């Protein structure tokens, strides 16, 4: 199935892209998707702990199972002022 991912703030820098459309297997959770996408990064567990995820128009836990057409956003905390 197809999903859309958007990377907010520092994820754009860490992953080098701002968004992508992706073909993923059925039953994939946000957490599994996150670990796939951040494969090359250090301290992924810590990253996961400080990141929240929005799917369509709501925040969701990382156990959320993705559905066809979901738009997911990786949102790290941001502190600039």
């Amino acid at each position: 199935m197809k999903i859309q991912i958007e990377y907010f703030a520092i994820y754009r820098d860490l992953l080098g892209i701002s968004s992508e459309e992706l073909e993923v297997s059925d039953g994939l959770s946000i957490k599994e998707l996150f670990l796939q996408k951040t494969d090359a990064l250090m301290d992924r567990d810590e990253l996961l702990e400080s990141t929240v995820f929005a799917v369509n128009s709501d925040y969701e836990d990382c156990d959320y199972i993705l559905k066809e057409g979901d738009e997911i956003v990786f949102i790290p905390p941001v502190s600039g002022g």
Partner: protein
Amino acid sequence: MFSKEEKNFYQRHFLLDDIQVSGQEKLKKSKVLIIGLGGLGSPVATYLGAAGVGSLTLVDGDVVEASNLHRQPIHNYQNIDKYKVYSAKEQLEKLNPFIEVEAINKHFDVNLAQTITSKFDLVIDCTDNFSARYLINDACVLFNKPLVSGAIYKFEGQVSVYNYKKGPCLRCLYPKPPSDSLVPNCAQAGVLGILPGIIGNLQAMEALKILLNLGVIQEKTLLYNALESSFKSFGLRKHKSCPVCSSKATITKLTAIHKECKMNTLKEFEISIDQLKEKLDGTNPPLVIDCREHSELEVSRLSFTKHVPLGEIQIGTEDLDKDQEIVVHCRSGVRSITAINLMAQVGFTNLKSLAGGIIAWTNKYGME
């Protein structure tokens, strides 16, 4: 009641059915705490002051720097090196003489939070670091104040209303300050000057709506992406085990949150004028770099310094030995901390910032 002059000032508000004289009176009686008078605080303070919020309290311990002005237009070039809160107060009083502005030239800490938070109707977080953001959130939950929070990163920004009528708070979303891996260093990433203007104005708008009980108060995060000209919003939910606002809360009083940029605040990265004098008189004197602007050298300059303006600090020090002892000074000791942060990033290992800057030095030792 309003004087004739005030009526004149606010007449376009009076014409709005949703505000009228009664709404304007509500604003006049409102007390708002604005923490941080930088990129976000500039528009927040300007527009809430102009809107007639009767009492604004400004908190910030920083001074105005030239590199702030492209995104902090409440300040001006004449006010460089002045405390931001005084610079902002001066501007607000010129803009609207009918409001009260209190300036507190300190960073928001546990003590201050404990003493003043209860006095306000609303708190606006315009700070630039996680320690302050978590402390402000906790204070707002514990003192039961709505919090309008804004934050920016490069070309993106976000606005959230937390703890509105005991609704979700920052920790419902992010229970604890982030890991260092998400905050690789604290030297400020570049930021497009207009971005905080947009995000700050969104904060000011939400604040006004809360004070006037107007429209729908957003229990959501609004994300703005300037490059894509897009807004997105996501509903916030209270977390059943939030560490501060749930029935399972473990945070029941305010404590300092240490998530500072390591170099930003630690005293060990500062050197006093007396310590520097001693080193300069010794056998192995450090290299002293003056990081002020060219124009400032005409006013005062120490003969033994190498001049590299802050804006060129990484390029201008490229050829230096990374392990030699270097002391950086500016006018008052603020910009030099930024300078050593930037130099540390490119590999310098033995850096100090002169506390009090050239002002402190010349007061005691003259120009030498």
